[in-house]
C-alpha cells in the first residue's frame, strides 16, 4: 500500500516536471528572436500548405490561445512537419525512439550489472593487485572522452581488423532479403550494436564499479556482517548474500542520478556510429535548423529520462523497504 502511494506521488511529480518542460519549450520557440512562423513552418512549403499549417499550429492567434493549441496538438500527436524530411515529425519520432531505447537500456543495465559484480570483487580483495587494477581501470575508462573512444574503437575494430561494421544499425542485404527471418534480422542488429554498446558500456561501468566498491567496504563494517561471521557462515555466502545486496543500493541511486548524463553520451554515440536514434536526430535537426523536429526530439528525450528515473525510483523502493516516504 505504502509503495503504491509513493509511486503515485512520483508519477504526479514527473507529470508536473514534464509540463514545465513543455511550457518552457513553447516559450523558448515562440519568444525567440525571429518570427515563430519561420521557426515552425518550412520555408520551402507552398503558400497554401504553409497557411494550413499556420492555422493548425495556431500561429496567427494570441499567445495564450497558441499555448492551448500547442498542448492540444501535443496530446493528439501533431508536432508539425520536419523541414528536412518533409514527413510528419511524429512518424520520424516513432521510427527512431525504439532504437534509442534499445541502445540506452541495454547499455545501462549491462554496465550496472558488470559494475556491481566487479566492484564486489574489487572490494573483497581490497589493497591487492586485483583491486588496484580494477580501480585504475575504472577511473581511466570512466574519464575517457566518449566520442574519442568511439572513434578509436571504430578505427581499431572496424577499420583495422574489419570485425564490425563502421556505422549504421542494419545491413541492407539482410533486411531486403524476404527469406530472412526474425532471428537473422535480430542478429544483424546485434552485430551492429556491438561497438556502440561497448562504447557506452566502457564509459559507464567504471562509475558503478567505484561506487559499489566503496559502498561494499562500508557495508562490510556493519554489525550484521560481524554476526554472520560469528555464526560461522562461509565467506562467499557473507559476500554474496549478506553484504552485496545492501551495498548495491547506492548503485541504483547513482544510475538514477546519472541518467541525464547517460543520455548525453547516448546522443554522442548515436551520432558517431550513425545509429538511427533520437539523439542523433536531435543533433542533425539542430544543424539543419529543423526546428519542429528538434523540439519534438528534445521532448521525447526528456520523456525517456523522466520515465527511466521513475523506473529506477520504483526499483529502489522495491529493493529497499526503508525508503518509502
Amino acid at each position, binding site marked *: 500500500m505504502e509503495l503504491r502511494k509513493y509511486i503515485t506521488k512520483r508519477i504526479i*511529480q514527473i507529470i508536473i*516536471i514534464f509540463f*514545465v*518542460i513543455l511550457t518552457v519549450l513553447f516559450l*523558448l*520557440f515562440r519568444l*525567440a*528572436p525571429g518570427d515563430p512562423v519561420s*521557426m515552425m513552418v518550412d520555408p520551402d512549403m507552398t503558400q497554401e500548405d504553409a497557411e494550413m499549417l499556420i492555422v493548425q499550429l495556431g500561429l496567427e492567434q494570441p499567445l495564450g490561445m497558441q499555448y492551448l493549441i500547442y498542448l492540444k496538438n501535443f496530446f493528439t500527436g501533431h508536432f508539425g512537419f520536419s523541414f528536412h524530411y518533409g514527413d510528419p515529425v511524429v512518424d520520424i519520432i516513432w521510427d527512431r525512439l525504439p532504437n534509442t531505447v534499445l541502445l540506452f537500456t541495454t547499455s545501462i543495465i549491462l554496465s550496472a550489472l558488470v559494475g556491481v559484480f566487479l566492484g564486489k570483487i574489487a572490494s573483497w580483495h581490497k589493497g591487492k593487485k586485483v583491486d588496484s587494477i580494477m580501480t585504475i581501470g575504472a*577511473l*581511466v575508462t*570512466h*574519464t*575517457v*572522452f*566518449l*566520442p*574519442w*573512444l568511439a*572513434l*578509436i574503437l*571504430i*578505427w581499431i575494430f572496424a*577499420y583495422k581488423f574489419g570485425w564490425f561494421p563502421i556505422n549504421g544499425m542494419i545491413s541492407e542485404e539482410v533486411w531486403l532479403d524476404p527469406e530472412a527471418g526474425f532471428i537473422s534480422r535480430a542478429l544483424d542488429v546485434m552485430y551492429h550494436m556491438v561497438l556502440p554498446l561497448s562504447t557506452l558500456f566502457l564509459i559507464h561501468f567504471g*562509475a558503478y564499479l*567505484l*561506487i559499489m566498491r*566503496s*559502498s561494499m567496504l562500508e557495508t562490510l563494517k556493519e554489525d550484521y556482517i560481524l554476526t554472520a561471521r560469528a555464526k560461522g557462515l562461509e565467506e562467499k555466502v557473507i559476500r554474496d548474500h549478506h553484504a552485496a545486496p545492501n551495498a548495491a543500493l*547506492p548503485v541504483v541511486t*547513482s544510475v538514477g*542520478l*546519472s*541518467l*541525464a*548524463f547517460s*543520455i*548525453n553520451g547516448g*546522443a*554522442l554515440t548515436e*551520432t*558517431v556510429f550513425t545509429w538511427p536514434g533520437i*539523439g542523433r536526430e*536531435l*543533433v542533425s*535537426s*539542430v*544543424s539543419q*535548423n529543423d*526546428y519542429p523536429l*528538434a*523540439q519534438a526530439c*528534445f521532448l521525447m*528525450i*526528456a520523456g525517456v*529520462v*523522466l520515465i527511466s*528515473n521513475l523506473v529506477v525510483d520504483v526499483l529502489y523502493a522495491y529493493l529497499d523497504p526503508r525508503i518509502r516516504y
Partner: protein
Amino acid sequence: MVSKQNENSMGPERHPWVSSFLEGWSIFRQNLLGKIGLTLLVMFALMALCSYIPPWISPIYDPMTGVDPDITSCSGPCLRHWLGTDFMGRDILSQLLAGARIAFMVGISAAVMSIVLGVSIGMTAGYMGRFIDTLLMRLADMIMVMPTLLVVLLLSAVFGQLNIWTIVLIIALFRWPGVSRIIRGQTLSLKQRPFIEAAKVAGASHFRIIFIHIMPNVLPLAFLFMTFRVTSAIITEAALAFLGFGDPGTVSWGMMLQWVWKTGHMFQAPYWLLPPGICISLITLSFYMLGRAMDEVLDPRLRKEDQTD
C-alpha cells in the same frame, strides 16, 4: 605549493585556515592518486602558458589562422611541425596548446559560476526553509534531470551560433543543483547550532547570518565539488564542439576532434586523432583524481557523492 608550505611553517603564528590547509596538505601528500592528478594538472597549466609561444615565434604557428606556405594539406610530424599539420596546414601542436588554455578557461569559469550559484541557492533554501526551500529544491530536481549537452544544443538551435562565454554560462546555469543539495543538507544541520542562535539574538540579518556565519562552514565542501564541476564543464564544451556547435572563433580540443572526424582523416592521421582525445581524457582524469583525493582529505564518508555528470 611546496615553497608556500615551507614559508608558512616557518612563521610562529598561523591563521586557522592556513593550519587547516597544512593539515589537509599533509594528508593529501600521502595520496598517490591526488599526487598524480596534481602533477598532470601542473603539466596542463604549463601547456596553457606555453600556448602563447608558437604564434609569437612565427605567424605560421597561429592555431587558428596560421598556414604554412609549403604545406597545404594534412601532413605527418616533421621537424617544423612536431605533431604534424591539419587539413589546412595549421600546426597541431600549437592547436593542442591553445586547447589547454580554452579547457582551463571553460572548466574553471563554469565551475566557479555553478558553485557560487549552488552554494547561494543551497544556503538560502536550507536556511529559509518552508516555501522557499520547497520551491528551490523542486527547481533543482527539475534541472537535475535535464541533459546539459542536449539543452545547450537546443538553445543553439533557437539562438544560432553560441559564443564560448554563453556556452560557459549555460553550463553553469544547468550544473548547480547537485551542489546546492549537499550545501542545503549541511546548512540544515548548521542552522541548529548555538552560534547561529547567538547571531540571531545579537540582531544579525538573514543575509548576514547566511553569508558571514554559514558560508565559511560550507565552503570546504563547495571546493570539493568544484573539481567535479570543472570536469563536467570541460567534457560538455568538448562534446558540443565535437558535434560542431562550439564557438567557431576558438580552438578547443573538441573542435580539433571535430575537424579530424568531419574531414575524414581519422583513419589516415593518427597523429592528429590521438593527441586531442588523450588531452581531454587526461585532464578529466586528473581533475577527477584530485577531487577524490580532496574528498578523502575533507571527509572520508563523502565518497558516495563523487560521480561526474
